[in-house]
């Protein structure tokens, strides 16, 4: 009923891409079965660094999911028509990202069979409980909105009246998922790297840079594959959003660095030292962090100069840099470094193990798989031209 039949047919390239993703998913699944059998000992995590790649990917992807609001809000609240064709891509991206988030949480559990204990014994004083509620709700909201609007588009009928309040609800909800995720970390005593009121604002800024950056790249990719280029106005507006969000994000990061290093309080400094210079001879994240910083700086140069930002090739490059830079920052550094040094001053190195990486890759492949199917459905509904203007959808915005 949800038009899934549209996703079953495609060109040779499409089938190969799906096959490749399925292979990655299978490899990840096989490793997960191994983890289920032997426990989380097959990962690189330890008593001191008790969260690693999984939770870090989760954190990063919550941001990507939340960023859908950056296309939904201008379109539905400000009637910014250029986004008419793109909102659905943003919503589908949110669906795929939230699904990945949930999977990353799930594979991180020591006793996955008991995961529903969270709902069986609801615990409002635990942020994990709220995170589950907000993520689940966000998934349902976006899935419903995207599928309903797509369906009305296909049938050429005006959208049902009840969808607008749901769309309006999805906007603050997007902000909430990343705020709650930040609260998960910044409310903990004894983890100085996270214990900062700016964590939630910083999460949102980096989310609104990385998510739209990915969306720009996806639009360009889909446009090229379907030989139907996305509207330039839409991409430029998105590029502007990425620019502002990235500037604010870098500003926030610099504020963190200043506060920690100028106050010179050891426990605030040490995790940052571990990230940027290494601690007690351990420097596994140092090259990563400097690559992240360099990419952030380079992307800002490309984005801030209007002439460069409006060049499609340079914009694509800048978006790639933003995305990768923030992935390093949030998808590796921020989570792992908070555990170094340990509460007892120990510096324990963490590097993800091969099965851990394969499981993570498998989940990313599941996300890409879901996104591909959903985009394929949207594409079929719109007659193989995702970005051609349509009148039916404009109705919802009014």
């Amino acid at each position, binding site marked *: 009923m949800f038009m899934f039949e549209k996703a079953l047919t495609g060109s040779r390239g499409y089938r190969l891409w799906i096959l490749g993703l399925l292979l990655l998913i299978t490899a990840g699944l096989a490793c997960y079965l191994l983890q289920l059998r032997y426990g989380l000992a097959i990962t690189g995590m330890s008593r001191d660094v008790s969260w690693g790649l999984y939770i870090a990917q989760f954190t990063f992807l919550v941001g990507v999911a939340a960023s859908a609001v950056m296309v939904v809000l201008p379109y539905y609240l400000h009637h910014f028509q250029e986004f008419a064709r793109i909102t659905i891509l943003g919503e589908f991206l949110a669906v795929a990202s939230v699904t990945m988030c949930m999977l990353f949480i799930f594979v991180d559990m020591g006793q996955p069979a008991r995961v529903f204990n969270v709902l069986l014994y609801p615990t409002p004083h635990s942020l994990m409980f709220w995170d589950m509620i907000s993520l689940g709700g966000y998934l349902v909201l976006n899935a419903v909105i995207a599928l309903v609007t797509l369906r009305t588009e296909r049938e050429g009928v005006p959208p049902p009246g009840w969808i607008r309040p749901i769309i309006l609800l999805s906007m603050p909800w997007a902000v909430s998922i990343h705020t709650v995720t930040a609260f998960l970390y910044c409310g903990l005593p004894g983890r100085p790297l996270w214990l900062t009121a700016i964590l939630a604002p910083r999460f949102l800024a980096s989310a609104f840079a990385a998510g739209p950056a990915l969306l720009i790249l996806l639009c360009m990719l889909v446009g090229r594959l379907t030989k139907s280029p996305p509207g330039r106005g839409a991409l430029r507006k998105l590029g502007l959003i990425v620019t502002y969000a990235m500037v604010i994000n870098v500003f926030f990061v610099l504020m963190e660095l200043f506060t920690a290093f100028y106050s010179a309080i050891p426990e605030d400094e040490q995790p940052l030292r571990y990230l940027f210079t290494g601690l007690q001879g351990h420097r596994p994240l140092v090259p990563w962090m400097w690559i992240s910083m360099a990419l952030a700086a380079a992307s800002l140069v490309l984005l801030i100069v209007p002439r460069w930002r409006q060049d499609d090739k340079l914009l694509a490059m800048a978006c790639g840099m933003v995305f990768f830079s923030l992935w390093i920052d949030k998808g590796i550094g921020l989570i792992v470094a908070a555990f170094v040094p340990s509460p007892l*001053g120990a510096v324990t190195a963490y590097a993800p193990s091969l099965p851990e990486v394969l499981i993570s890759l498998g989940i990313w492949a599941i996300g890409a798989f879901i996104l591909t199917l959903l985009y394929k459905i949207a594409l079929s509904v719109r007659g193989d031209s995702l970005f051609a203007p349509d009148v039916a959808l404009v109705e919802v915005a009014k």
Partner: protein
Amino acid sequence: MSLTRQSFLRLSGLSFVAACARKLRSAVAPARWGMVVDVAQCLKQPNCTKCIAACNQAHNIPSIPDPRREVRWIWKDSFQHGFGIEDDYAQISAAPLMLLCNHCDNPPCVRVCPTQATWKREDGIVAMDWHRCIGCRYCMAACPYGSRSFNWMDPRPYIRTVNPEFPTRTKGVVEKCNLCSERLVAGQPPACVEACPEKALVFGNLADPHSAIRELLRTRRAVRRKPELGTRPQVFYIV
């Protein structure tokens, strides 16, 4: 079952009295278990690990050689690490220190647990239900003392001699010191306290002003780990 009005009233009255009595008892004499570690006393035998051995034996704690996968309830670290103090001149910085769960009065681990698999009992012990724990390790991130361990793998093959009186754990759950709640029920002191040859570990009821532990805290200078975090540890160190 038929219930006459008279017996209903009698039962209600009785339950009311029972509830009041229970409240009254906990109001009059609520036990508040705590511990004092007399560091100088402990240092008399610097290589002694009897408390650790007793605890490990009593609680089926696995001896896992890889320190990254280690499970520990009570262990030895340096004073400097335990208290985070870098004092270049004091000899005590490098001195060994016994560390365990602080059974905080305001425990962050309890606050964050999404399933109430860890909670604070009325007597102040921070307890755990290993059958409810989902293994999310949020409590480990929240504990500012590094007192919690995770079973990264099945611990059973690493248990030297199994104590049939105490449960073993499965892979994928968090565990920590339970202040020997199973022994307290039987009127015994914690295993580590009993095993200490120097009586360096003093266990008792902090709520009783006449207890030995209160006497010790009144007359000697005691410190707690990271008091600035507001967790209010119930394990004290006499320096």
